[in-house]
């Protein structure tokens, strides 16, 4: 059942019950009070009537004491306020102004020194009868006065009829008001339903107004908080998915260079009969690149997916580091007819070996792809840091592109990059690796001349023995 219908039914029931209970209490209380007042008035008036009757008996004591004189009683009744009846001490009717079929049940118990009153219907009318013993000299009678209270009963009937009209009119008006109020109360809830539907369709910017301090306002606030949380979670999930995609893309990208070395050296072993020493060198490079690849996959996972930045940097000799890098690139350089010209000042530097090697390989790979044939790697101490730069004599990068080249998947010349199996991820990854080392990549380039890429490393603690 809809909330609107539930509200309507509950409110209608409450109003019905309240009206009926209050109507019942009002009418019965009013009627009871009216009857009580009539009883009190009747008793007060009875006292007057009793004194009057007694005075009449005193005045007619001579005639009355002989026999119960109807004439005397008739005279006495003339001054009374209601309908009179007189009974002997034995409760025999002497005189009565009431209808003949009246049942005087009031006489069943009339204690001395007391007034007994009884409500009774007589001949279609409602009366209150008051009775007591009347003694004057030797005369002992029961004296009864009946007062008509039909007006009081009629008044109660009128009240009941008026109540019915008021009840149904009030009920009808209440129904109309309840309908309007139910619609008014459920309108904010419908707004929440619509908002939830919009969010389900992907409109995460939907928010509800939160004016007021009632439960609906609190629901709206909670809904907005929930929506914010959902939106954040979706962004987070999207970011996470994007990162996973980045990882897969970067990993696939990074596979190429080591694989090129591995394939190159393996091909060399396969094609040529090499001396044992060269065979061992080649096998060593194959082994180290394979191991690096294994290590690199885990580090790329940390770097890209987990956004981990707290890699442990190790002390390494700069000359040994770059010699190793140059050795790994030998097949690639030979393929692209490029040469590496290292000019490395020996020093101790803090690097994460696998990641830094990946960075350098990416920079050098880019340099060769840009058409560079002479690639200088310069390493020198610069104050408290160790500067490294990669200079190529390739085609250069337009100045307008320099700010974008570290964005993931960005390629200056897409068609050429694709031909060269590029994905636009290398410099993006290199920038992240530079950040791990507490540095950033600085690019300067002149089209047609070449590009210089700089970064700096922290100095280590190994002293130069030379």
């Amino acid at each position, binding site marked *: *059942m*809809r909330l609107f*219908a*539930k509200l*309507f*039914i509950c409110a*209608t*029931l409450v109003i*019905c*019950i309240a009206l*009926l209970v209050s*109507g*019942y209490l009002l*009418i*019965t209380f009013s*009627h*009871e009070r009216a*009857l009580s007042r009539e*009883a009190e008035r009747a*008793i*007060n008036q009875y*006292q*007057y009537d009793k*004194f*009057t009757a*007694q*005075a009449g008996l*005193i*005045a007619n004591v001579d005639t009355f004491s002989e026999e119960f004189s109807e004439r005397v009683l008739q005279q006495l009744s003339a*001054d009374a306020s209601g309908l009179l009846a007189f009974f002997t001490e034995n409760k025999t009717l002497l005189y009565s102004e009431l209808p003949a079929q009246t049942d005087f049940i*009031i006489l069943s118990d009339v*204690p001395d*020194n*007391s*007034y*007994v*009153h*009884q*409500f*009774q*219907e007589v001949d279609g009318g*409602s009366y209150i009868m008051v009775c*007591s013993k009347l003694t*004057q*000299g030797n005369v002992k009678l029961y004296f009864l006065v009946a007062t008509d209270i039909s007006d009081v*009963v009629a008044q*109660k009937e009128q009240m*009941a009829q008026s109540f*019915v009209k008021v*009840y*149904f009119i009030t*009920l009808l008006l209440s129904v109309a008001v309840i309908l309007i109020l139910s619609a008014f109360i459920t309108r904010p809830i419908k707004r929440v339903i619509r908002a939830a539907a919009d969010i389900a369709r992907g409109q995460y910017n939907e928010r509800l107004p939160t004016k007021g301090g009632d439960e609906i306002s609190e629901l709206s606030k909670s809904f907005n908080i929930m929506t914010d949380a959902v939106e954040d979670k979706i962004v987070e999930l999207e970011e996470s998915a994007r990162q996973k995609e980045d990882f897969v893309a970067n990993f696939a990208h990074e596979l190429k260079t080591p694989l090129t070395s591995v394939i190159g050296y393996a091909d060399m072993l396969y094609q040529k009969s090499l001396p044992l020493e060269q065979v061992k060198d080649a096998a060593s490079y194959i082994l180290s690149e394979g191991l690096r690849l294994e290590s690199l996959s885990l580090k790329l996972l940390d770097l890209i997916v987990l956004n981990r930045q707290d890699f442990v940097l190790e002390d390494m000799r700069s000359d040994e580091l770059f010699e190793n890098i140059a050795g790994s690139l030998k097949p690639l350089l030979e393929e692209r007819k490029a040469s590496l010209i290292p000019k490395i000042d020996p020093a101790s530097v803090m690097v994460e070996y696998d990641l830094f090697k990946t960075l350098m390989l990416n920079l050098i790979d880019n340099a060769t792809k840009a058409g560079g044939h002479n690639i200088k790697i310069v390493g020198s101490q610069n104050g408290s840091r160790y500067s490294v730069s990669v200079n190529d004599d390739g085609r250069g990068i337009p100045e307008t592109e320099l700010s974008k080249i570290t964005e993931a998947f960005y390629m200056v010349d897409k068609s050429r990059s694709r031909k060269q199996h590029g994905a636009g991820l290398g410099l993006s990854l290199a920038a992240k690796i530079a950040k791990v080392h507490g540095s950033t990549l600085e690019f300067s380039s002149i089209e047609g001349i070449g590009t210089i890429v700089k970064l700096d490393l922290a100095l280590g603690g190994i002293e130069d023995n030379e």
Partner: protein
Amino acid sequence: MNKQKAFTAMGIILSFVIAIGGWVLTSTLIDMRSDALLSASGITLMNAPDARLPESSISSTAVDDPNVEAPMLPDYAQNTDGPTLSENEIISIIKNLESPTIERLHEPSAGQITMEQAIESGQAWCSVFSESGIIPAELFNWEDMRINAYLSQRLPLDQSEQFLNPIYSYWTVTYSSVYMDTNLDINAVTGKVLKANIALHSYPQTALYPNAIKNVLVRFIDDLGLDSYDGIKTTNDIIDLSAYTLIADGEAWAVVNTTGRVATEGTYVVSNIHVYLSMQEPQLYRSYSIEGIDEIED
């Protein structure tokens, strides 16, 4: 959805059934309650003041045993027997009658006179008017009069449920005939008249002289056991012939006030006689002097 609509429709129908059924039930309950009330009965005791002894000035004839006969009325002429009220009690009674009160009827309690005694006392007291020549004796034909009486007390508004001392009760006795209506307030313990109003209708030749008025006043205060404090004064006016005096050491007034007209030289035809006690000085006309009407000296 159809099920939901069916439930909603059922709920709304049920609401209306309850609304109408509830009204029918309430109507039935109201009628049942009314029938119960209209066949109810009750017993109310005949309340009366406690039969306490009034102040010590009341003589030994006062009793508090309801089975003992009511005290004997005093002989009016002698005015010596029977219970009397002290001046303080009379002052209290006057204040009670003049303050905002509500009248409550009651049956006589022990120590209070009966209706018959009150009627007889009143009849005896009225003889002062015929003795003084104010109203002819033949007008006081009691057998042709309609007599009515009731016993009551005037209770303070905030104390209307509890009766006062029996001395505050009084019989209001009315004697009505073609010629006049006499209304007396008679103290229920002593049987003495505290107030009298006589309205004369069809007997215009009733003459009235200042001395007669004085006699009425003297008999009135003697009967109550009171003395004039500073002498009896009279006023005379075209419509007002009155006598009054201070009583109870100057604390209250006893007044006989008449209204009427001057009929012939030396005579004053009365239409109303008012005899009463009051804490307030009477507001009587004093502006005219009637030739031939003697000034009353103390």
